[in-house]
């Protein structure tokens, strides 16, 4: 049944998550993807059904491959405060912060969520493995940085009825959690840490547990969620939701400075609209000197939200100043038809001259009309990149649905 244990890595390079034996039989369409060294489900049934469960009911998403680091020790706070651009001293125990970190040139390495588990212990969740960088940054600090990805199983429970599912599972106590708050609970007999965090821009929680308890917690939630419309979802549906919420996807909307080969392909936080995460008042942090220069000069390109005419997603499209496609302004990084907003939305990197809200740009879209290709120049408006942000995501205690 589970051959991952015995198969050597050169025959089965991808690991299976602790939820694999539960998720595998529910995946009807055999659509899997490799994610950070694990095989995970891309689609269980149909992308649309799964997407609407995120916005209408509740969803379970296997988050285990998210790379997790345990950062602990007397200097853990100082270490993180030098690494991360936000002021980590303001992060209280039991809270989570979205954060970014940069290389010496002020280019973004990654974004992630930082959990403060105690005075001296943190968990950093990231998109990609980077112990090489985190360990190099730890020189001179009394701190332990270790990857714990395989030691922690994780599930995202997201959607308007997700709080109801928790209650039905006997986790009523978790209802008190405010956004970005952490609590420790018992799911049946299993200890779980629950954080009110997520990647959907909706009401939702993330559950962190011992891999040995993974199947029991899955079973508990799936049973409790039966009357609340709970269903497992894959990465494809989640990607639509994250784009509606305006969240960046690493390796899609930006490339880590640790991986860029060409000059000029790295991005700084000003360009990505993440400068609200920079705290120049807190003292030194990595990349600060370079970022102060960018702050003075202003970014030359910026990541923006686009609202595009028509209904054809502008995947990989080039962006121009006019319909004549003479002056290039940039390119789309992510695009999707938003089923909730009924808008044709995208994230794009454009020249700073056209990055102001309300600017008009033109997007070059290729249309496949029964294998006959057409090129269309579609008008687009620069808009706030948070396309969908329902109030229910913040309400505490959460509403029933």
């Amino acid at each position, binding site marked *: 049944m589970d051959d991952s244990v015995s198969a*050597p*890595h*050169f*025959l089965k*390079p*991808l690991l299976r998550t602790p939820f694999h034996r539960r998720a595998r039989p529910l995946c009807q369409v055999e659509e899997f993807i*490799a994610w950070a*060294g694990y095989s995970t489900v891309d689609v269980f049934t149909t992308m649309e059904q799964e997407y609407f469960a995120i916005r209408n009911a509740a969803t379970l998403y296997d988050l285990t491959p998210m790379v997790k680091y345990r950062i602990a020790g007397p200097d853990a706070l100082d270490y993180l405060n030098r690494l991360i651009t936000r002021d980590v001293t303001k992060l209280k125990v039991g809270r989570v912060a979205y954060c970014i970190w940069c290389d010496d*040139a002020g280019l973004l390495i990654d974004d992630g969520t930082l959990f403060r588990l105690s005075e001296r212990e943190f968990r950093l969740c990231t998109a990609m*493995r*980077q*112990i*090489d960088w985190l*360990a190099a940054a730890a020189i001179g600090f009394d701190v332990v940085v270790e*990857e714990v990805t395989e030691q922690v199983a994780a599930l995202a429970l997201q959607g308007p009825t997700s709080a109801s599912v928790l209650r039905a599972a006997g986790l009523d106590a978790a209802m008190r959690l405010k956004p970005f708050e952490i609590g420790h609970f018992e799911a049946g007999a299993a200890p779980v840490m629950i954080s009110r965090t997520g990647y959907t821009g909706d009401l939702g929680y993330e559950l962190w547990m011992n891999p040995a308890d993974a199947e029991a917690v899955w079973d508990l939630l799936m049973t409790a969620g039966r009357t609340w419309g709970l269903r497992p979802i894959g990465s494809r549906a989640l990607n639509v939701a994250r784009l509606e919420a305006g969240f960046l996807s690493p390796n899609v909307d930006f490339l880590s400075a*640790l*991986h*860029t*080969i*060409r*000059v000029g392909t790295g991005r700084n936080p000003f360009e990505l609209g993440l400068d609200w995460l920079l705290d120049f008042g807190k003292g030194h942090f990595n990349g600060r000197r370079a970022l102060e220069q960018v702050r003075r000069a202003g970014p030359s390109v910026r990541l923006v939200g686009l609202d595009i005419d028509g209904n054809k997603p502008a995947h990989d499209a080039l962006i121009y100043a006019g319909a004549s496609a003479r002056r290039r302004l940039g390119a789309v990084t992510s695009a999707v038809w938003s089923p909730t907003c009924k808008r044709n939305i995208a994230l794009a990197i454009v020249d700073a001259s056209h990055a102001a809200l309300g600017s008009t740009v033109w997007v070059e879209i290729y249309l496949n009309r029964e294998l006959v290709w057409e090129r269309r120049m579609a008008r687009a408006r620069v808009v706030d990149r948070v396309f969908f942000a329902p109030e229910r995501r913040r309400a505490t205690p959460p509403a029933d649905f």
Partner: protein
Amino acid sequence: MSARTAPRREHDAIIVGAGHNGLVAACYLARAGLDVLVLERNPFVGGAAVSRRLYGEFTYSNCSYVCSLLRPEIIRALELPKFGLQIIPYEGGCTMMRDGGHLALYDNHDALRREIGRHSKRDAEAYERYSRDVMRQCKFIKPMLMREPPDPTSFKPRDIAELLFLARRFHGLGERRMADTLRFWTMSAADFLDEYFESEIVKAHFAGSSIIGTALGPRSPGTAYVLLHHYMGDIDDTVGAWGFARGGMGAISNALAASFGASGGRIRADAPVARILVKGGRTRGVVLEDGEELAARLVLSNLDVRRTFLRTMDPQDLPPDFLRQVRNFKIRGSSGKLNIALDGLPRFPAIPPESPCTRGDMHVTDTIEMMERAYDDWKDGRWSRAPYIDMLIPSQIDPTMAPNGKHYMSVFVQYCPYELAEGPWNDTRRRAFGDTVIETIARHSPGFKDLILHAEIRTPWDIENEVGLTEGNIFQGELTMDQLLFNRPIPGYAQYRTPVAGVYLCGSSAHPGGGVMGAPGANAARAVLRDLGRKAAA
């Protein structure tokens, strides 16, 4: 053109030596409409890119044995696939350790990360930084491969434009990467690898390509560049990938010869050139060893710079200062080769069953220290007692190399001196050298010796005598900074032209150097055509 300029037959160009670069140059010239004759002293073409049958139905890649650097522009322009060339990538690689362990390299990114992670989790991720930095340098250097290096002392518009191209590319790197580039070109492979990895076995595996064909140790400054040189190729856009030419490396030369023939060119084998003839500072052809004179307006030498000017030209025809620099050109023999016919597939107990890592390059040097000690032996005028070997079994992938169920093994050996301290090379010493290599393999492969049906053992002395490469140096000259770019082979003569009008260098003594790249041949042909006021085929 040729018919009307001379009463007796005068060729537009004669190419001395049918190595792959000579053939590449010949192809480009013939395609531009020149009447080209290629002269080869051996009864077969290819120089050091040959496939030969010395034992039964086994095909050996006698000298060079794997392919990566051959420029895709050349393969395309000369239509080599049409003439039978196919290159198949390796499926892995490994280093077997003295304690029975191993490090494998896998194509799959996740398998590779987990494999390196068995030795060091940190190194598994440092590998990404290492690959990134190597790729950054490759991106910088690669566009220079197919260009004629500028003469930094010249004020000709073309040289100034090329220098500007170099300067702009260099400047475009930014301060940090400019510094990295300079360090990369000058530092030792060991120092370079220390900046990334902590595990000895990981460092040893990657250090291998820094010493191949080079009379330097992994701790010698300049070897980081040699390492980079081996990453500069690609197969189907996979940068740094290496592969087998189907049918052995001779398939490259044979495809080139066929392409040349299809453009009307002619090759004469068994036609050793004794002298390049010069009259009034200008070449007028060559004379063969049997005294036959062949007239040509241009002579391109595929021989290395030392052999061309010290053994194939009259010193009276050359400037003394130039000759002094040619004599000092570093071209030291440091590599040997074994080609072995095997009765079956050897067993390597260190490698787990079903691992594809044996379908690529295999090694047994598990520390940099061991590699440096192997170099120490070379300095003492002996072959390494524990040599670095680059061992492949192409017949696992290419069915044309050996009878079904049997195998051909190619073993490249570093280090082996051209001149032994104990006396000249002879059969006894050659056998002893071969035994050292076979013992080295047998330590990792029980029963290996019983599988051997035939072995061809080649010392640098043998390679010089058969192929003509001075001291058997595989790159036609060391790839060190003092002999690269506008200093290759000789400052002031880096543009394929020589002090004698009409004589050109087209072998890998010229920029950008060796490795079965074909770029020196293509660039030399372009220089010739420019001098004639013609354009090369795209």
